[in-house]
Structure formats: structure tokens, C-alpha cells
């Protein structure tokens, strides 16, 4: 699992934290969000205008939006599947800071971000605050998927597939209201993006564990004493 390397005065272990499906879905999600936001914004507010009837701008935007929507759906499904099949760092249990220890970690991370604590809590996988945030982000993702398919379903003849993927939402919300929230929640996701990038960029030099590169390579570099503490 781990290779020992020496960094400065501190012994660090090279730990395989993020397995391939975790990294893959992370980047699929990231690019899906990028494409879905651009095309989705255009669908809500067509800022480019065609000068000829031969163009197909809205057509392309919608086509890309729908194709990427499927990619995003698959990516989210794979990630949720991996929450049950993957290693301890990918597990769904990470999402809920219920144990006393996790709750402390959660508070320590909060304190760190608010400059009350100098050291971030050291963990190999997700810190409790981060994983709880990602849980919320996934709830938001699922809302976007369900509301998106609800909107998509109305241009198709009724079928059980559309009903399951999102059509059921039409029973409890009016179509324009779904459209409003589908649009609005995009901004919630877009607000999360800089937060996420900033936090990573901020944490990386503090933890010195290769946080940023770990999402490419899967490996984190964790001080030996942290692991020993964790194992005790």
C-alpha cells in the first residue's frame, strides 16, 4: 500500500488513496459541468444569434447538452457505485461525520479555514468537512439530473424510462418551476467550483501531501506519524 519516502525532516508514506474510478469520475464530472453550464446557459438565455436559417446553434447546444447530460449521469452512477465497492477513502461512510473523532475533524477543518487553527487536520482521504461538502454537492448533482430529465421527458412520448429518470418530478412541481430551479442550481454548482479549487490550492502547500496531483496520480504523501496515529 505504501512506499516510504523521506521529505525534509519528516518521513512520508506514499499512499494510494484515489482509485481509478474516483479520479475518472472526478474529471468526467468536472468537464460535464463545464459543458453543461455553457450549453445550459445558452438554452436558458440564447446569447448568440444566428444570421442564417441554415445555422443550427440552438440545435447544437441542446444536442451537446443532452449528450453530456448522459455522460454526467453515467459518471455520477459510477461514482455512487464506487462508494459501495471502492476502498475506504471512496466509501459513502466518509460522507457523514458522525463519530466523535470525525466531528472533531470537521470542527478542526472549519477552524483552520477561519484562521483559528494553524494546522489542518491530517487525513489520508477526505477530511470530514470536505467529504460532507461533497455529499451535499452530490445531492445537488442528483437534483440537476432529475430536474433535467423531467424537462427532457416532455418532448418524448410518455414512457417508464422518462418517468423514472425524472418525469416523476412533474407530479409535484410545475414545469416552469422545475425550469427555474434547474437553471438556478447551476449557479450553486458554479459557486462551488471556485470554492473547491481555492480550498485545494490553499490546502496543498499546508498539507504538503500532494493533494492537487493526487487527483491525477491517485497517490498522497502522508507523514508516517499521522498513519501511526491513525492506526492506534
Amino acid at each position, binding site marked *: 500500500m505504501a512506499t516510504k519516502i523521506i521529505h525534509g525532516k519528516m518521513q512520508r508514506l506514499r499512499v494510494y488513496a484515489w482509485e481509478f474510478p474516483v479520479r475518472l469520475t472526478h474529471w468526467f464530472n468536472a468537464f460535464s459541468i463545464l459543458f453543461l453550464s455553457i450549453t445550459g446557459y445558452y438554452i436558458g438565455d440564447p446569447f448568440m444569434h444566428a444570421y442564417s436559417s441554415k445555422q443550427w446553434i440552438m440545435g447544437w447546444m441542446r444536442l451537446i447538452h443532452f449528450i453530456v447530460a448522459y455522460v454526467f449521469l453515467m459518471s455520477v452512477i459510477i461514482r455512487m457505485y464506487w462508494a459501495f465497492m471502492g476502498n475506504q477513502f471512496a466509501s459513502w461512510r466518509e460522507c457523514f461525520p458522525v463519530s466523535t473523532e470525525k466531528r472533531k475533524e470537521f470542527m478542526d477543518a472549519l477552524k483552520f479555514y477561519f484562521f483559528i487553527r494553524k494546522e489542518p487536520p491530517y487525513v489520508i482521504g477526505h477530511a470530514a468537512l470536505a467529504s460532507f461538502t461533497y455529499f451535499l454537492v452530490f445531492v445537488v448533482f442528483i437534483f440537476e439530473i432529475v430536474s433535467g430529465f423531467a424537462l427532457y421527458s416532455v418532448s418524448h412520448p410518455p414512457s417508464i424510462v422518462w418517468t423514472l429518470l425524472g418525469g416523476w418530478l412533474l407530479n409535484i412541481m410545475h*414545469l*416552469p418551476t422545475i425550469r427555474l430551479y434547474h437553471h*438556478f442550481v447551476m449557479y450553486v454548482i458554479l459557486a462551488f467550483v*471556485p470554492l473547491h479549487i481555492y480550498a485545494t490550492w490553499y490546502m496543498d502547500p499546508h498539507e504538503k501531501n500532494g493533494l492537487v496531483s493526487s487527483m491525477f496520480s491517485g497517490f498522497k504523501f502522508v507523514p508516517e506519524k499521522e498513519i501511526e496515529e491513525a492506526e492506534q
Partner: protein
Amino acid sequence: MKFVSDDFLQEASESMESLGDKGISRRAFMKFCTGMAALLALPASFAPKIAEAIRGKKPYLVWLEFQDCAGDTEALLRTTAPAVGDIVLDVFAVEYHETIMAASGKQAEKSLMDIVKNNKGNYFVVVEGSIPLKDDGIYCCIGGRTAVDIAREVCGNAIATIAVGTCATYGGIPAALPNPTGAVGVKEAVPNATVINLPGCPVNAENITATVVHYLTFGTLPNTDKLGRPYFAFGKRIHDNCERRAHFDAGQFARQWGDEGHRQGWCLYEMGCKGPETFHNCPTVKYNAGTSWPVQAGHGCIGCSEPHFWDTMSPFYRRLPKVPGVSIESTADKVGAGLAAATAAGLVIHGIGRAISPKKEE
């Protein structure tokens, strides 16, 4: 090419006798029957069947008006050549219709009650207008009886009730927030009645006729969706049958009333058209005997045939509804952009905080 058989022509001319001296030509009658077949998504070969069915029985029909503007009555009466309205009035034996009947007062109410008593389970009711339920329904009374009381008796004993217009189907404009009279549609007011919903503001008279013609021809009401609307009229979205759809896909939009795009007949999406949210057969059947419909006339759809359209589809000239709970003028984009900007600002502040906070010991 021949669309109809000789038998049909024969039958059609026989039917003409029953239509009497109404000035409807045989041609107009044939056209009517084939048109009805097309509207019900039946092959043209059904036209003779329809002609026969219409010629046969004449169902009694009573037309009730509650909290309404008589717009649906107008839609029916103002149907123009080839006198569809006349044919409809001849298809039914209209026994009670507050706006067009000659009788009035006690005499009129008596004729209504006679129908209900003598033809139990053998007449149609058309209801126009919503039914108030608040304070025991006192906000709409006719001849001293509340609307809900009348509806219970008349609709409860009918073959079927055709709720016409958005008010009779889902409460419509009287039910718009804050709904002071507690207005509801017929199905909600009289849950045990057989109700078919034909929303629209006003209803398209052709859809009423087609519903009754379907019943006369097949002996059943047309299939409906979960909102009680027949699929033949409400199975497709306006946006998917709209004549401006090609401009939508191209990316050609009118952006202001009277601008170049509007004059060119481009898509009205940016002007708030609710065609993408509305199910109705307006683009194919059109109004006033196929003359026009809102989008053809250059005005976006306002979604008038959807439940609670007054609250959910407004503002009619904007793409998205207003954000509830936030100030009146806020749109989703303003609130959303504000949220994203606040996050970015928070991060900048945090960055500054980090720069000035004492450095951690290595």
C-alpha cells in the same frame, strides 16, 4: 386521389336532410366529418362512421356557466365557415345554455331540472367556469343555489361532463393566487362525476365537438392523460409542432416586439413564449376555424391551458419565473450571479486573511 367512398357521399347527402335548411353544403359536411377524423387521429376511412353517428342520435346537452367570462361560449358561437358551430348545435340537442337560450328565470331552471330528472345518465354537461368552495360556495349562486350544489346534481347524473376552459378544468383565473373564493375545477368539486378536461383560454370549440363525436362514434370518451385531458388534443407540446420551431433550432429569435427578427417571424422564445411548457393542439388545429393562433399572430404562448398558468407561467414575457421569496424584480440569473460573485468575494477575503495571518512554524 379519392379519400372517401361513394357510400360516404350517399350517407352524407342523407345527413344533409337532417341538417335541414341550415345552409350547410354537402361539401362542408363532408369536410367536417373528415376533419373530425383527422383531429381524432383516425384514418379518413372513419369519416363515414362519423357521419352516420352524427346523423343518428342527438344527445341532450346542458351547458352550465359558473365563475367565467363566457369566453368558451363565444369561442363556440363565433366559429365561422363552414358553420361548424351550426353543425355542433345540430349534433346536440342543447337544452339549457344560460347565454343563448330564450327562456329565463324559474322557467329556465325548471327546464334544467327536467333534463336531469327525465334523462338521468343520458345527457352531456358542458361546464364553463370554476366552482368556488370557500364559505360553502356562496360566491357563485344561480337561482339561489350554489354552483357546487348545482354541479353535484347535474354533473353527477350525466353520461359525462366536459369541463371546458382552464377555469372549469383547474380553477383558472379565479383560482389564481390568493384564490379569494376557493375556486376549483369540476373534477375537484364533484369527484365522483365522469369528467373530461378540455382546458384552454378559451377552449378550442373543435376539441369539444371532437370529444362528443368520439363518444357518438365509439360509445366511449377519448383516452386521457393524468390531468384528465384527451391525448388527441393535449398529447403533444406546442413547441414540438410550432411553425417557428425551425427558427428556434437555428438560433433565430425575436428579441423585441417589432424588431427585425419579430418582423421576420422568428421564434418568440426570448419574448417569453411558453410553448415549451404547454401541451395543446393549437399549432395544428388553430382557432376560429383554422384562421390563426397566438404564435402565428406574433405573440408568444402564455401556457393558458396548463393548470395554474396564471401563477406558474408568469411573467408571460420572460423566459423564467421570478424567484419566490426574493424581491419582485429579481430573476434567477441575478440571484445566481450574485451567489457566485459572493463566493468569489469570500475567497478573495480569505486569501487576504491568509496573507496577513502569522505564518505557521515549519
